[in-house]
């Protein structure tokens, strides 16, 4: 970020010596001006770090059942209090957060891959456009939560048998959430491809005999990535909410895997006597999704060519 400090010091004379500006460098400069997005990035970084490193620093067991201390409020020994079986809630939140965030990121990876592929094919090859967009429209009309519940109800047991109880349900949720959420990306990528296809640099690439696949991957795709990145960021938040909703309905992860949604599901029964039990996982979900949405908002502003200065 030398460019910024140079500009502040002596804007007029060093203009020529300034390092070349790239799209991502400009975007980062713009992003840093968005205070709430920076706060979101910081909070998000902290939460991710906490769920990854936290369990090594905070060594309370996640499954230390102790009936002498059930449903206690926050204290020095247990900063988030304890649950109905006397287990330490902070340890469980840290452990579960890792799963919740991982589900969100993986599901979005699936959704973005499918969406980018479908969008690129239908934007580049005119013949595939009609059928693929019809398919996209159909998927948009699918009621996602009922279908998610249906698929999980039907396939849960066999995948659990195949891959084990935790990985099985993890793979299932990631795949289903991903495969029901690629449509927005497909539309964005298609729109970007349709306009980029007509640009001179693509026509030039055609003219020098560059093969189609190479044009798509090397020339068009990098220019179409900005809206995908914004959609992906916001998608992670949505996927975390979807996973939590499933677990909250009791149809996601099994009880011994305390994802944030699952903790809320367990806490629901004790809401009148131990509100802290629901409060902490709920706050963590909300804080994570809120930070992600602010980061997405900042990215959208930063990558919008109309706002670049």
């Amino acid at each position, binding site marked *: 970020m030398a460019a910024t400090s140079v500009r502040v010091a002596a804007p007029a004379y060093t203009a020529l010596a300034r390092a070349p500006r790239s799209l991502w460098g400009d975007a980062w400069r713009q992003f840093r001006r968005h205070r709430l997005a920076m706060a979101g990035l910081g909070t998000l970084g902290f939460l991710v770090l906490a769920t990854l490193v936290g369990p090594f620093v905070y060594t309370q067991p996640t499954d230390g059942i102790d009936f002498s201390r059930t449903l206690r409020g926050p204290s020095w020994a247990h900063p988030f209090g304890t649950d109905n079986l006397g287990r330490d809630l902070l340890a469980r939140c840290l452990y579960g957060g890792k799963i919740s965030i991982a589900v969100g990121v993986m599901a979005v990876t699936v959704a973005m891959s499918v969406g980018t592929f479908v969008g690129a094919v239908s934007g580049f090859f005119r013949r595939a456009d009609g059928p693929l967009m019809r398919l996209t429209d159909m998927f948009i009309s699918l009621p*996602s939560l009922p279908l998610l519940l*249906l698929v999980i109800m039907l396939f849960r047991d066999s995948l659990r048998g195949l891959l084990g109880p935790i990985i099985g349900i993890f793979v299932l949720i990631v795949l289903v959430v991903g495969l029901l959420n690629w449509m927005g990306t497909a539309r964005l990528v298609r729109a970007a491809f349709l306009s980029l296809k007509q640009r001179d640099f693509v026509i030039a690439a055609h003219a020098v005999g560059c093969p189609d696949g190479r044009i798509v991957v090397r020339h068009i795709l990098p220019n179409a990535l900005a809206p995908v990145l914004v959609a992906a960021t916001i998608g992670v938040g949505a996927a975390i909410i979807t996973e939590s909703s499933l677990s909250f309905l009791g149809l996601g992860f099994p009880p011994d895997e305390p994802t944030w949604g699952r903790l809320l599901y367990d806490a629901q029964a004790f809401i009148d006597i131990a*509100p802290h039990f629901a409060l902490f996982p709920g706050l963590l979900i909300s804080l994570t999704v809120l930070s992600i949405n602010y980061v997405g908002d900042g990215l959208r502003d930063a990558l919008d060519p109309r706002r670049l200065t």
Partner: protein
Amino acid sequence: MGRYVLRRLIISIPTLLGISVVIFAILAFAPGDPLSQFANNPEVPFEVREQVRRSLGLDQPVQLRYVSWVTSLLRGDLGYSFASKLPVSELILQRLPATLAVLGSAYLIGLLIALPVGILSAVKRYSFFDHFATTATFIGFSVPSFFTGLILIVIFSVHLRWFPFIYDSTIETQDLESLWRQIRQTIMPVAVLTFFYAATMARYVRAEILENLPQDYVRTARAKGLRERILLQRHVLRNSLIPVVTLLALGLPHIFTGAVITEQIFAVPGIGHLLILSIVNADTPVVMGVTFIFAVLVVAFNLLADVCYAALDPRIRYS
């Protein structure tokens, strides 16, 4: 216009067929036996189970089963529930009013809040009100509805004891007192959904108005001396609300998601509640029926939105 509506209606038929194929395929290729619940029941001997299988047509090939399922769907026959032995369509019709009442009122109140908030925060961009409203909308669509619901329960049911936290479906509205009880128990589920809808819609409204304000026609209108109020009402608002209609329709699947969760928290006897109940009971015909009804509602509202879109914006004609 009439031809456009007709065309749009015809286009939605393959969409619905596609959806029916997806739902059917998921069930048909799912591992496990749809009659497994009878297998564990000692009162149902093997022969009876096979007879049930034949009477349900489960011994036939997949294509034939699909065709017969779709033809009975067209007749409005969604099959019978495993659990209650009642027709699925009857179960759904029983519960649809509660869902639509809660969703409808939340949607309406949400819109009534979102419109002024969105307009004001776009017109007074970067003002204190705009910052406040933008933050509130961000929180509104970031906080999951199940958490909002639980917070409302802790505050208003447990501490203040203003509202009951379980919906009592036995209340019949006969007099003012029972009407009041009915309203009181709907306030919290409606509030949870309203918060979410209002946040989403206010964001759309604000973004669309901001999109329109710097445009040439606005400058022209200002230049000819039009008052700001009229300019907003007659020019900007009309143009801005057109895309909002589509965005609202596209967000509909999410709205049903919220409804399922809210009904589950507050035990509102709607179709979302029915869905969860039948999933827990492995009541396949009901799950299929409810999923399909959700899909039909989504397609129907999308159709409505497209028709509204064409009616509102004379520039748009899909030929």
